[in-house]
């Protein structure tokens, strides 16, 4: 597979995520779109890792393994972020009974 395919696919996913962030008002969905962005990055990383593996000539070489490890770390971080993020959203929901990111708009100008 040409790596460009993967590049473009993940960019597409990434941009869809961005669009989600831009267009949705529900905090949770916005957050999910962000997760989507992260996943697109993961895909890209894996693709690249395999690419570098290919470049290095395949076989027993471990070239490109760090890419996959990075993905692992991204997942870790994502998990942490999710826990915090959802906590924040819940907290806000407790106070306002709304998950709308524009509901609270005291801070401006």
């Amino acid at each position, binding site marked *: 597979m040409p790596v460009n395919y993967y590049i473009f696919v993940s960019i597409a996913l990434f941009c869809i995520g961005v669009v989600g962030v831009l*267009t949705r008002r529900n905090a949770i969905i916005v957050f999910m779109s962000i997760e989507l962005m992260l996943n697109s990055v*993961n895909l890209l990383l894996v693709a690249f890792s395999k690419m570098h593996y290919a470049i290095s000539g395949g076989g027993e070489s471990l070239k490109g393994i760090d890419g996959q490890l990075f993905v692992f770390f991204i997942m870790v971080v994502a998990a942490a972020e999710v826990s915090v993020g959802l906590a924040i959203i819940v907290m806000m929901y407790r106070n306002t009974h709304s998950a709308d990111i524009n509901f609270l708009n005291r801070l401006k100008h």
Partner: protein
Amino acid sequence: MGITQILFWFLTAVALGSALMVVLSKNPVYSVLFLIVAFFAISGHYILLNAQFLAIVNIIVYAGAIMVLFLFVIMLMNLSPESNIHKNKLIRFAGFIAGLCLFLVMVAALKDASTQKQLVETSGGNIGLIRYLGMTLFRQYVIPFELSSVLFLSAMVGAVVIGKKE
């Protein structure tokens, strides 16, 4: 065109389609479900790339744990699919345009990159296998591994601080 290609295109289509549905669907619950579908598709890609470990982790962590967490929260808030959950038309339109522009610009920027002729080793290659990953992780990447525990600690403390009722 070989099976790999077919799978690739199929998975891609699924991923992109469901991703779009995540953004478009009115009901948050649908969005979650579509997101899970998208994650599965991505995991499929991983398998296609012979990154088995990541594929499994992706399923377990993301599609499993994280998404379930999302679902719980949504249920807990029992958000009804109100129509006003969308921003007004103009902002939405602008949002789509912006996203499209970003896509086009990045593609335009990267299309004539010298990566064109670079191929991706599908199947084959054992860097995706858990033992090699494990070995590298605990040899090479032990420090980030340890330090990420700090991250978790802080996340934990944070969740407690914020979640705890007074």
